[in-house]
């Protein structure tokens, strides 16, 4: 262990660096929420529990299920665990839908970056497949998580995202029967 003065300086520097690192994460997140395009995706919700972060509802987004009958696929055949981009367009019911899935990033529009789940090697072009998006959890206290799971049975639930130009996105809140509940501030 250092001398008392050396230890004081060392620990203050450690605290400043650690506080700074955490502050930078919060600042970047709030900036992304502020600048991203807001979209609402339809989702189912179920309630498991994380060891460190407690209860959350597991999101099952409709846009993750790709049906070639309704979605354009210019880059077939796709492989298992391949990076893809889901192009989104606003739907009539208030939820955004997948309009195309491509292997390269589109030059414009709103799109999300994901990874294909298992695609059989000899899959027919009309065969539906899944794309995994990096949004699977919405954290909430146990009571709220269970409420959301119950609401899921008879109401339309969705998730609000702030989508960046590179296809990454952050969760801004949830939508219950068309009502947007934003969940993004520090206060």
């Amino acid at each position, binding site marked *: *262990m250092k001398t008392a003065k050396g230890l004081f300086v*060392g*620990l203050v520097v450690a605290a400043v660096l650690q*506080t700074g690192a*955490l502050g930078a994460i919060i600042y970047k997140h709030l900036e992304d929420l502020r600048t991203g395009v807001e979209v609402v995706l339809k989702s189912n919700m179920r309630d498991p529990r994380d060891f460190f972060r407690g209860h959350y509802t597991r999101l099952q987004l409709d846009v993750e299920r790709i049906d070639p009958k309704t979605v354009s696929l210019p880059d077939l055949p796709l492989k298992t665990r391949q990076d893809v981009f889901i192009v989104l367009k606003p739907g009539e019911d208030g939820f955004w839908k997948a309009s195309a899935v491509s292997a390269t990033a589109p030059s414009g529009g709103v799109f999300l970056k994901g990874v294909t789940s298992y695609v059989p090697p000899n899959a027919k072009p009309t065969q539906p497949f899944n794309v995994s998006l990096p949004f699977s959890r919405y*954290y909430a206290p146990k009571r709220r998580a269970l409420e959301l799971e119950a609401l899921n049975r008879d109401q339309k639930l969705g998730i609000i995202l702030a989508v960046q130009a590179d296809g990454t996105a*952050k969760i801004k809140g949830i939508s219950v029967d068309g009502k947007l509940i934003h969940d993004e501030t*520090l206060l």
Partner: protein
Amino acid sequence: MIAFNYASRLKEDLLAWQVDGLIDAHTRDRLLKRVVDEKYSTTFGGIVAMLGGLLVLAALIAFVAANWDQMPRIYRLGLLFGALWLSYLVAWFGASRGYDALSAAFIVIGIGAFGAAIILISQMFHLQGKPENAILLWATGGLVTTLLSRSTAALCTTIVLGSIWVFMAAPFNRDAASIIGIDQFYFYPAAIILLAWVTRYFRSRLAAHLLALSTLGWLAILLAHNIEITHPVWWIVFALLLMSASGVLYSYVGRQGLFGFERPLLAYHAIAIAGIAISFASTTRQFKQSAMSGAVSLSVLALVIAFCVSLGMVLLLRGRNSPLMRDQIVFPIAAALTIVMIACVYFTQTAAWGLIGLIARWVFCFFLGIWFVRFGWRLESRFLSLTGYATFLIALLVSYLQVMGSLQLTALIYALLGGLLIVVSVFILRIEKRSEEKT
């Protein structure tokens, strides 16, 4: 625990020495007071403070996991930032008043508050990143605190966090995080080298044990993931282990560059070497596949280097007339035998030769175990001897489950080996008796 064992053993020895007339009762009491009582009280106080610190750390994480929404986010965050700053402040205050154990406990709480804040932020904002990245950030924060405070407790906490990180980033996690396309798991050796350097600088025995265990865990996961052993990495790891174990033994005889941690480190080496050797021996088909593939040149090259380096160490010890020179010979012999076994599998195609190769590999494992027992006896390390016994027993169990050819042949091999060992033991006992009579 080490202190308790040492104290009780010393107590017995002191009583025996007093009975033999080597020391008087006054000297015995003084030695006991100095070594037993003081050691016990210091260690116990430190343990209580550290356990208290761990409980507070668990409380912080449980507080975050509860996702208590009665308090605004900014207050929750402020609470953890406050805990972080306050812990470090109390740690400094404790150290300046001479309460080193208390100071260490609060440094651990401070690192815990940093981790809890990371978890809270990812929970509050529904951050979807990979959990192993969060743990990596936590461990990095722990390392920063370790280096700036030079605290052994912080170092131990960082090593534990590093171990959690590498376990979460293990290849059996299909979505494990990667860096430049390579799984984070494979970068752990770099972290081990960095942490080993810090551990040596701090001269912390506890940290050294934790790091050795963590390294063994990493090796075990690597082994489990690549159990088919079709990759040359296993032979290179084996060669590196032989070389480094040889270097550790050389350090033991020489200037003790690891400040007395040589004996436990040799035992950890023995565990790793035995684990890999038993895995090699038990994977007949894969062994052949790997030897027939391009892996053979890389693995033989690594083993030839290991052979040359460890032989060099033998010659250096011979120059010093060290009694441990003969123990050092085990490393070049192990490297040479492994090369011969690879060559046998590579050049032989028939099933009969394949069986001989399999038997040879198991015999190699049995003798490796016996040699480790001898090492333990020579260096007076119970840990190392136990590793040898365990190696022998595990090799016996796995070879029995695998069956060498047929059960009759397996029984015959055991009987021959057993008979051979009994004959050898008679010779050893006679030599020991003669040397005893001389003295």
